[in-house]
């Protein structure tokens, strides 16, 4: 925003008649470049995510509509993520071996998952030999209890942690709040979301749906800063100033895990802010939460994934920090909590087990045209976008039964996936599961029954179109599954109905009664 635009807009309006520069912009004198004296600017309010549906199906469609109605947010979100997609293309396509590397990564992951028991055993043995304490958690509740117990036994009251989708999946912060332990997120985006009481909207950019104005407003509300201060480096420093003391006095630190290396027992965490190192190395106690699917067999395999991850996520050759944790520091403790939480069940699903290959790069979200226009929070789940659509139903079949329909099945997600998960085919397959389990809304399933009935009976079909093809006005209802309103009411005009169908044309010009044949 240029200074001219913010200088007493109520006075200038759009009738500015003062001196102008060569480009026709109003000239601003020195006083004008200082902070204008005016009331706090009102920005477009941040659209919130899906309404809490309890255990009923999430209404992603409704939330997406509100996101699109917030035009500034939608535009910024779409453009920001598309830019990440372009950067990804540039970085990825600069490597001649890119597509081969995707294939290799996919095979390593599939092999690891097929021998998960072996590699988890190796990982545990190696970790123990390194002096790490290893815990196993069957589900989210057990994960939370284990971490709580570790903290309680040591009298720890405060915990700093770096970003971890697994802990979000486990509802970890809410649990810890319930037992009186203060959790401070050290990833900037995740901290923003924590302060705002929201879930992350993107696996690597938790607050990517927020504009700088949203963040300025949030920090004003929660950290007491100036709501009109939208300078990004300054906003980041405000947060840093507020969080650093909490980090320094924390009793324990926690990280997630990007890769768990079986042969060395190493946990590898990739960040761009160095906050995993802060979280792990500042307090004497480090706990790492690890999903069982994070296993890779050998240290050398890491090279493949590290080359793919950051390029595919944001178009950089590496993340700023790649932190390896293998053993407790002198005088410290290192704990691994290895979590299943539905993963082994997912591994048994013939059509869906390869979703466990996911390395959480977020590229499928960046490329998804639906996600970009509806925001991650519209999915009402820990995991959003294409990968969320195929993971979430394994966590709660009923609640996430509607999500597979929030996709156009365009397939771009599959093509950008660094580990070659056939994401859009799995979305398609989930629709079938939801239909077979009678989880489709009644209107939808009835509509398909009727369509299927009519379309398999040519005479009935032609009759439905109107006798002698003259009642074409009926047809739009029919072809568009009787949802004319969604065409005309939502920003789209109906096509004109021509005077004759092709079928009628053929009969007239080429059919048995016509002279031409």
């Amino acid at each position, binding site marked *: 925003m240029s200074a001219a635009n913010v200088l007493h807009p109520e006075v200038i309006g759009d009738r500015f008649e003062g001196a102008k520069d060569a480009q026709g912009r109003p000239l601003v004198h020195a006083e004008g470049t200082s902070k204008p004296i005016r009331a706090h600017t009102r920005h477009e309010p941040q659209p919130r995510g899906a309404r809490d549906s309890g255990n009923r199906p999430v209404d992603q469609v409704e939330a*997406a509509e509100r996101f699109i109605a917030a035009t500034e947010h939608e535009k910024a979100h*779409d453009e920001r993520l598309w830019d990440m997609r372009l950067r990804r293309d540039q970085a990825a396509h600069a490597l001649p071996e890119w597509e081969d590397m995707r294939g290799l990564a996919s095979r390593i992951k599939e092999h690891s998952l097929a021998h998960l028991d072996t590699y988890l055993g190796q990982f545990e043995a190696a970790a123990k030999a390194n002096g790490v304490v290893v815990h196993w958690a069957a589900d989210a509740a057990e994960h939370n209890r284990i971490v709580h117990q570790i903290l309680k036994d040591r009298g720890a009251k405060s915990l700093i942690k770096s970003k971890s989708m697994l802990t979000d999946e486990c509802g970890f912060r809410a649990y810890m709040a319930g037992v009186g332990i203060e959790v401070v997120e050290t990833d900037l985006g995740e901290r923003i979301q924590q302060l705002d009481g929201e879930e992350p909207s993107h696996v690597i950019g938790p607050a990517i749906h927020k504009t700088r104005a949203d963040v300025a407003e949030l920090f004003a509300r929660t950290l007491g800063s100036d709501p009109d201060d939208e300078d990004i480096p300054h906003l980041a420093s405000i947060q840093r100033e507020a969080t650093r003391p909490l980090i320094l006095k924390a009793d324990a630190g926690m990280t997630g895990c990007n890769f768990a290396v079986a042969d060395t027992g190493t946990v590898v965490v990739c960040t761009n802010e160095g906050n995993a190192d802060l979280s792990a190395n500042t307090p004497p106690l480090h706990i790492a939460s690890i999903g069982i699917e994070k296993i890779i067999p050998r240290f050398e395999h890491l090279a493949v994934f590290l080359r793919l991850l950051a390029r595919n996520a944001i178009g950089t050759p590496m993340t700023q920090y790649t932190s390896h944790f293998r053993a407790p520091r002198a005088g410290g403790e290192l704990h691994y909590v290895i979590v299943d939480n539905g993963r082994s069940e997912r591994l048994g699903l013939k059509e869906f087990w390869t979703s466990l290959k996911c390395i959480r790069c977020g590229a499928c979200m960046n490329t998804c045209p639906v996600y970009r226009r509806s925001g991650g929070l519209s999915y009402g789940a820990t995991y959003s976008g294409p990968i969320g659509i195929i993971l979430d139903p394994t966590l709660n079949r009923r609640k996430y039964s509607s999500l597979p329909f929030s996709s156009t099945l365009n397939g*771009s997600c599959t093509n950008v996936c660094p580990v070659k998960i056939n994401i859009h085919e799995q979305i398609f397959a989930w629709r079938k599961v939801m239909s077979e389990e009678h989880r489709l809304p009644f209107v939808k399933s009835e509509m398909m029954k009727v369509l299927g009935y009519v*379309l398999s009976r040519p005479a009935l079909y032609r009759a439905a179109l109107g006798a002698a093809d003259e009642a074409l006005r009926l047809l739009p209802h029919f072809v568009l599954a009787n949802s004319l309103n969604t065409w005309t009411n*939502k920003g*789209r*005009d109906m096509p004109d109905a021509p005077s*004759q169908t*092709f079928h009628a044309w053929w009969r007239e010009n080429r059919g048995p009664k016509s002279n031409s044949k």
Partner: protein
Amino acid sequence: MRVGLFIPCYMDAFEPEVGVATLELLERLGCTVEYPVDQTCCGQPMTNTGCHQDAAGTEALFVKNFSSYEFIVAPSGSCVHQVRVNMTAIEQTPEVRAVRQRTFELTEFLHDVLKVSAFPWASFPHKIGLHYNCNSLRGINLASPSEIKTVPFSKPRALLEKVPGVEFAEPTRWDECCGFGGTFNVFEPAVSVKMGQDKVSDHSRAGAEYIVSADSSCLLHQKGCARHIGNPIKFMHIARILNGASA
């Protein structure tokens, strides 16, 4: 060469002229073309919604209508994708499998089977933006998508390059989905419309007079979106240009 012509349900209803153009074009190129009059649909609306069993009758009808043809050609990549990739609700007899394998999208049929080298009757002196239906692009590979590092190719574009006068506009997000998405456009209208409006605006900014595609479904949706926002851009199915339509 005996060709069974499949005209998708929405094309039958809204764009019969594309069906006529396809028919005439194939005949010009020496094919014997028949249109089985009992045809209805490929089954995609039901399958796309997850209701595969509801598609079984329609799939069986498709096979019954087309099993006697050497080639089955449809001017719609989306429907061909359904037939070739997803027509699995019925038992996969040798007859069913043969029909699925012999079903071709028009431009791939012209490009790969007939290997057409010229369209002497065609001329289209306009700047066009080429739109790819996602199933055509990423499902049956009419062109190489932008996500994949490969040697770029495009069958529709290769054909249009043989038409004198055609000039190509280059929209920035040339292979982004337009939001039609089968039943998606009905069940998630807000996102669908926004995608469609963004799509036509992208083509306009690139200077396209026409948006041209091998799929009418996307074009119908985009046309509705363009009209609503007052965008005067025009739309034309590739079959009409290749058959010599002038505007």
